[in-house]
Structures are given as structure tokens and as C-alpha cells.
């Protein structure tokens, strides 16, 4: 069972990587290589290959390049502010951001570090549909294009972002997340975060 699912995960990863190469003009091997060289500072917090083990620090792997470069852009332009990330992004050029994005998008996703409660595993699927999470982030909450992957993301990070959108304090380019979160009950936010953080990326 465990064996089978991890084989599937590798296959899905390969498929995603190959698809990504087809779709994204910037996803060339040379860009990925250039991004890897630049990534040393990033992985200090975001973990090897962008798989974070630090609560509150998001994993970067498993996102499409577009989602990664968009957030770097948001930090550089001051749309999102963070004591660690703002100075990191401030001096990056668009090309450097694209290369970093190409690299992290090509990395494999590690299994989740979080174990959701049995109760929330039961409630999660219905809630993520009712609150429209699956509409944009996809049926398996893996994200697509600029829409970030949620499955297996750090619990504390999910919690702070969802609360931020709900409180209108988290930057939201087109207002989609703010709008979606306005319907979410405060008491459902920890349930969503717990369920999603424990969800395997597959």
C-alpha cells in the first residue's frame, strides 16, 4: 500500500515535471540549473528541494513555476510583507525569480510532516468542496499555474494564510481568496488547515 502510493507519487511527479516542461517556456534545463545555484539561501528555511520542515514556513516544491515567481514578485513589490522574505526578494530580478521558480517547480514533493485528526480527515473533503477550495486548487488540492498547492503544506502556514485572507490582511491580487474566505466560518479554519496539511500530494 505504502509502496504502491509512493510509486504513484513518483510517476505523478514525472508526469507533472514533463507536463510543466511542455507548458512553461521558461522551464528549460538551463533555467532549472541556474535556479538551483541561487537556491542555497532559500533551502536554509524552506528545506531541501523546497520541502519545509519548519512550522509556519511554507514548502515551495509542488507548485507550478508561475505560483512561485508570483509570490517572489509579491514580496519584491511590497504586496506581501515578511521580515525574512522581503529582504530576500528585494534584490532579485525577474530572470532570477523565473529561474528559482523553474528549479523549485522541478523538485519532488516530500510526504506530509503533519498528521491530521481522524475527525478532520472525515470532515475535510466536504468542507473543501463546500468552500470552493477544490474549484481552483483542484480536486486533489495540488494547485495549478498561479494557484498554489495546498496538499501537505505546513499547518501553521495554512492557518495564518487562511486567517489573513479572512481578516483582509493578506494580499490578494484579484480578491478571489478574500472573497472565498468571507464565507468560511472561523471555527472551520483550523479544521481545513489540519485536514489539508495532512493530505498527501498525489
Amino acid at each position: 500500500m505504502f509502496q504502491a502510493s509512493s510509486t504513484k507519487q513518483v510517476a505523478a511527479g514525472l508526469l507533472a515535471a514533463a507536463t510543466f516542461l511542455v507548458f512553461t517556456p521558461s522551464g528549460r534545463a538551463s533555467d532549472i540549473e541556474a535556479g538551483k545555484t541561487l537556491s542555497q539561501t532559500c533551502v536554509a528555511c524552506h528545506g531541501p528541494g523546497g520541502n519545509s520542515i519548519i512550522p509556519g514556513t511554507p514548502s515551495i516544491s509542488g507548485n507550478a513555476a508561475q505560483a512561485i515567481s508570483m509570490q517572489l514578485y509579491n514580496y519584491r513589490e511590497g504586496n506581501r510583507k515578511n521580515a525574512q522574505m522581503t529582504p530576500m526578494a528585494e534584490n532579485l530580478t525577474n530572470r532570477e525569480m523565473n529561474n528559482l521558480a523553474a528549479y523549485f517547480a522541478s523538485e519532488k514533493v516530500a510526504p506530509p510532516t503533519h498528521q491530521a485528526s481522524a475527525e478532520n480527515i472525515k470532515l475535510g473533503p466536504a468542507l473543501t468542496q463546500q468552500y470552493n477550495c477544490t474549484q481552483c486548487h483542484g480536486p486533489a488540492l495540488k494547485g495549478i499555474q498561479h494557484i498554489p498547492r495546498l496538499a501537505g503544506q505546513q499547518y501553521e502556514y495554512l492557518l495564518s494564510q487562511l486567517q489573513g485572507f479572512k481578516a483582509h490582511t493578506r494580499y490578494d491580487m484579484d480578491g478571489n481568496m478574500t472573497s472565498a474566505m468571507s464565507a468560511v466560518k472561523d471555527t472551520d479554519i483550523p479544521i481545513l488547515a489540519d485536514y489539508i496539511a495532512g493530505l498527501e500530494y498525489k
Partner: protein
Amino acid sequence: MQIKFALSALALAFAMPAFSQTPAAPAPPPAWKQGIDNTTQPVTLHPFAPIMTGTEAKDIQLSKLKVAPGFKVEVWADGIPTARSMAIGEKGTVFVGNRVGKNVVAITEKDGKRSVKIILKGLDTPNGIVYSKGTLYVAERTKITRYDNIEANLDNPGAGKLVVDGLDPTNGPGHNWKYLAMGPDGKLYFNIGSPENITMPLYNQAAILRADTTTGQLERVATGVRNSVGMDFHPVTKKLWFTEHARDWMGEDIPNDELNVLSKEGENFGFPFCHQGDIPDPIYGKYDTCANSTPPALKLGAHVAPLGMKFYTGSMFPAEYQNNILMARHGSWNKTKKLGYDVMRVVLDANGKVEKYEPFVTGFMTDDMADPPMWGRPVDVLQLPDGSILFSDDYNGVIYRVSYSK
């Protein structure tokens, strides 16, 4: 590979377990989903976003673009992330605004070398941009500002002079970005979109307005326009022609987006009561009839997302292109089988009737069922003094030039 990817996504969708316990009270839908009928609509559609850091010219697949014999497309400028509306000054400076950034850039040419410079910073949704008689006008979310003698002050344009403020009555999510055009009467024409997909608009919403360039005095010239992000004046008749996005969530193939022409001031184009001139809205249709509004000059197709349009008046293209409309279509997200992502040509006869509607630049769409279906999204069209045209692509942050030679 693309097909395989789509199929595996579909398989996943069907493999999701259906939990039906704990039926909570239905939550109000988010703004973009407003008007959806969950029982009949597919729910895996999602909006697209530009690549915020742009795509470099070296990574643009120019060979995929198709134009008629004699025409040629090239990348004219890159490195302008989310490039949208364009305007050109008398000295040849090309100004570019955008919807999701905060800057206006100027592209200048010296000794055959083009350079891109940010001239205005910290703006709010500077999508509307027009140049006239030395002045650059910028329409942001809430206001229009004028920057006089702009081409002599690219290094320090200053804070500008406010023309009119208070143009975003709801200050919420919705169609709050503006398109700006200079009328033959010397006034600024712009849209205020419907705040939601489908709703009963307030007085100044879902309308095209015009403002005096110095006093800011406002007049409402067209109503019932859900959102128009492209307009131009016919070179001969001087009538205002404009593109309009129709509402979402009524189906794959309805309602059509519209190309409209204004024949009299204050004319009503139907929203929210009537779509494409002949489909009553399922909610608001009972409060007015289609007979009370002007039908479109041309139905453009459903969810094609027509944006910038310009009448061609240059001397480079063949004579039959004279006074044709060249129109950018941003392409759909609210549709399973995608459409658009191209530049279209609309030919009018001597009476202003549409004679032909055909592709001008295609090839951005690679697979109408894929996600994403395209690698570029045209936004606005601008004619250069030599008669070639530019069009912007906000997905890649690139501006292309289309030229012609026999």
C-alpha cells in the same frame, strides 16, 4: 502528454470520495462565482493569471504565431510584466499601463535601441492610459490624473494633476479597472464596470462615461454596458465603438461578448436585463425587455473576452485594411472548450455594418481543452506612425509588432 494530463485530472475528479453528511447551510458564493448554477455547471474552471515576472523574448515561441501572407510578427519589447493598455506620444514614446501592477512604463528608442523605464510608481490598477496633445492621462481604479508635457519629463513626471476622483463607488472586488480613450470632442471616455458578474448596477456602474480633461465634469454616454475594456472612434463617422464582456455562468456558448457602436448619447446596451441583444437574463430579464436596448453590431462569441480595439488608419497594410477594427481577445476561462487568445480583424462596409470577422494573429492557443490552453493573451492594440501595429500580451509581459511588406 497534454491529453494524458487532462485525463488524469479528470480521473482524479471522479475518484474523489463523495461525502454527503453534515449538510451545512449554503455559504454565499465568492464574487467571481456569483451567478453560477451548481447543478448544471462544471466546477473545475478557474481564472488565469499573468506570469508576474514576465517571459523573456528568448522564450517566446514566435514561430507558433500565424498571420496572413505578407504579414510578420516579432517581439518588439519584453520585460514589461503584465503589460496591458498602450498609448503613443508625438515623439514616439510608447506608454504601457497594467491591471495588476502599480507602474506605468515608457518605452523609448535611441540609436535603434529600445529601453523600458518605469515612469510612474505606486499607482492603483493603472489600466487606462491615453496620450493627447503632450499630455498622458492615466485612469486608475478611483481616479484619472493628467501628466502634462510628459515626453519632456520622463525622468520626473511629477505627481500630475487630478482630473476626476471617486470613480470606484463600491471599493470592493469587481470590474474596477478602466480603459481610457480620447474622444474627437477632446473628452476622456472610460468605463465603470459592473461590480459583480450579474447584479443591478448603481447609477454610474455598468456604464461608459466621459470627463472633461480640465474640469473633470462627468457625463454618462452609455448605460447597460457590463464592462468595456476597449474602445475607439471610427475615423470617418467619429462614432464610439467598444467591446463588452458578457456575463459568466450562463453556459458554454452563451451569452456572446459584444462589439457595440454608440449612435446616441445615453444609449442603453441591455445589462443586466438583456444579453447579446436577444437573451433575457435568467434573474433580471423579467424587469425589462430586450426591445428597450441596442443589440450588438457584432456577436463576438461566448467568453472570448474582447479587450483593446483600434481602427486601422496606417499606410503599411494593404488598402482593404483601411478603417478595419483590429481587436485583441484575451480568451476564456469560464468555458470548458476555450476560445480566443488572438487578435481579430473586423471589416465594416460603408454604412458601418459588419462585413467580415476573421483572425488576424492566432497561434497563442495550443489546445482548447488543456489547462492552460494558451501561452499568451493579447490585450491591447496600438498603431505606430509607420503603419505597423503593436499588441500587448499581459500573460508574458511582452509587446509584439505586426508589420507588412509585399
